[in-house]
């Protein structure tokens, strides 16, 4: 356990506005350069595009000024830049497909529409959810919702099997992947459940080989949820999402209990599960084959489940080299699903290692802000939720980029904010809105209540600061101490602000 001394937060949202300038420029310049690169002239709607994306970003900015004035200033620009970069790359690929006469080339406008919907929903979340602790009331509702969302694609009429995975729900013309939303609901459920049960999970139970093992009955409900989600996911043959849920589960248990045993148990379970899946399911075994022997002729030449996609992606990134080919100068469209699963490879080809590293650093900054929010926020539920949500974004990125670069076997997950796909974009914008909401709470200065020394009890000293003073340094002076009579979180925080003198 460590105590973290917070520093004073600079008020105002000027920094965010300033950071939004390069963030928007990345999206708009990318869009224009991609148009020039592919078709040799500036896209006709470039001005409208620039105005549209700027308005979307400014709407969120103004809502933040009004409704979450202390929210983190970096989250929004990073998200805007990533989304803009994704839109530019998607429009560039769509132009390339149209140029080569492919039928499926109209997806850039659809993604633009999804961006507008996502931003609108993020604004709705910010406006309606005034306090993230409200979500705690819906802990078990979130559990039911998550299970329902996961099970939805298995329903006979609306569920659809696309490329072997039954993860789609299609109602009329609108299709979506409910698992993307299930991850938010699961994070809410895990946070709400673990915050009330973490003490029994962490303290009760036997010690075996230096690992504190939990009691079976404390684990019951959470294992049921986890098992059910995994069963359904194996049934849907979507291993990326199941890996994502599993990672979220282990990470949030670790956040809640601070027990290394969870990580060890999780890794063991995962290795066992992966080995079992590789031998039992043909398509998982094929994924391992592609991963380990991607450049073998027989694996490369396979009709179904071969390594063509991965290897083409690797060739693309190699073609990009250090500084990339430049917008519209490469051939990322040769890779199947270059606009969704392999958008990282497309970016790696056209922007090179330099651009790809910048993109990865943007994600790092985003995850860091989320985890910092988790440290700063005063209630345990908010800590777990912010930690879980930022972990899920970072982990999803790891799974995708790891798969594309052959660090781990390839699984079908979308790159957050970048990849083509409405569900993913909406879900990730909602995650960003939740993180912004929690960070507003985390960075808001606490009203200081002066302690009155009483002869009987003595002078209160903020020793085990029950959440005081995230916005300002904790004072250990006897007469200037927030004694904790201010607004109080509804549960115990995990950190102790050191006021020990």
């Amino acid at each position, binding site marked *: 356990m460590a105590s973290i001394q917070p520093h004073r937060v600079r008020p105002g949202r000027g920094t965010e506005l300033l*950071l939004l300038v390069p963030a928007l420029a990345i999206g708009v310049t*990318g869009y224009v350069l991609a148009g020039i690169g592919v078709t040799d002239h500036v896209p006709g709607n470039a001005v409208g595009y620039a105005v549209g994306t700027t308005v979307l970003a400014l709407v969120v900015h103004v809502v933040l000024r009004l409704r979450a004035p202390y929210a983190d200033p*970096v989250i929004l620009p*990073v998200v805007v830049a990533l989304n803009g970069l994704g839109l530019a790359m998607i429009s560039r690929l769509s132009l390339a497909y149209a140029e080569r006469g492919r039928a499926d080339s109209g997806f850039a406008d659809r993604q633009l529409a999804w961006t507008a919907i996502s931003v609108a929903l993020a604004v709705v979340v910010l406006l309606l959810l005034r306090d993230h602790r409200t979500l705690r009331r819906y802990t078990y509702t979130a559990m039911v919702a998550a299970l329902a969302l996961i099970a939805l694609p298995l329903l006979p009429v609306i569920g659809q099997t696309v490329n072997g995975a039954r993860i789609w729900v299609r109602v009329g013309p609108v299709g979506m992947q409910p698992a993307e939303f299930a991850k938010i609901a699961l994070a809410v459920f895990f946070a709400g459940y673990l915050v009330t049960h973490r003490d029994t999970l962490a303290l009760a139970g036997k010690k075996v080989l230096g690992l504190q093992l939990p009691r079976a009955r404390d684990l019951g409900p959470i294992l049921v949820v986890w098992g059910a989600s995994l069963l359904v996911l194996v049934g849907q043959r979507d291993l990326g999402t199941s890996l994502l849920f599993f990672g979220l589960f282990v990470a949030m248990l670790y956040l809640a209990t601070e027990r290394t045993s969870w990580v060890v148990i999780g890794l063991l379970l995962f290795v066992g599960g992966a080995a079992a899946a590789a031998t039992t399911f043909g398509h998982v075994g094929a994924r391992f084959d592609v991963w380990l022997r991607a450049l073998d002729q027989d694996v490369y030449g396979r009709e179904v489940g071969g390594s063509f996609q991965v290897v083409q992606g690797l060739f693309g990134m190699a073609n990009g080299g250090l500084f990339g080919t430049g917008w519209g100068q490469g051939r990322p469209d040769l890779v199947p699903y270059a606009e969704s699963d392999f958008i990282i490879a497309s970016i790696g080809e056209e922007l090179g290692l330099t651009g790809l590293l910048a993109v990865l650093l943007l994600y790092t900054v985003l995850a860091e802000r989320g985890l910092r929010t988790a440290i700063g926020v005063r209630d345990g539920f908010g800590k777990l939720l912010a930690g879980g949500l930022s972990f899920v974004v970072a982990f999803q990125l790891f799974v995708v980029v790891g798969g594309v670069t052959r660090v781990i076997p390839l699984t079908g997950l979308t790159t957050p904010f970048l990849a083509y796909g409405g569900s993913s974009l909406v879900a990730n914008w909602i995650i960003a809105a939740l993180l912004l909401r929690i960070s507003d709470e985390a960075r808001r200065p606490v009203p200081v209540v002066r302690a009155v020394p009483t002869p*009987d009890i*003595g002078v*209160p000293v903020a020793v085990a600061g029950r959440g005081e003073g995230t916005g300002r340094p904790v004072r*250990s*002076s006897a007469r200037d101490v927030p004694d904790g009579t201010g607004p109080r979180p509804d549960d115990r925080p995990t950190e102790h602000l050191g006021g020990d003198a």
Partner: protein
Amino acid sequence: MSELTVTLLRIGYLALLWLLVLSAITVLRRDLYGTRIIDRRRTPAPRAAGPAADAPPAAAEAPARPPRRSRSAGPSRLVVTEGPLRGTTLPLGSSAVLIGRAPSCTLVLDDDYSSSRHARLFPQDDQWFVEDLGSTNGTYVGDQRVEQPTPVPTGTPVRVGQSVLELQR
């Protein structure tokens, strides 16, 4: 377009990407360098965590110089030696110290095995006494459960729930 323009645009775009990354990191630099983290497990007797200017002088300089002689070499601070708050120190004055989980306590323990108002330490006749306030799990001085106000010599472990406290000079 000429080769040169394409190259310049290419490099310029990468520079734009890195401009955002670096300016975001600049905004965060205080998070990276300005946050003080004190590990309670590693440091047996941590230094004052609060800003030194704000700390009362006796407490801030307690580890550095011998305690004041005014209290005839009595203990100058209360140290938590075991439990979730291990390493926490609390300067002792002339007033009593209330120990428990309630936020109104002087030493607020984050300890599930302590009661909300667990025990009280108070000075009398140049000596510190501990008194149990009807806690569930009891207070122990050494191995003895505290039934009535009991003197606490300097350096004797006092167990409250999972935590062990000690008076130090």
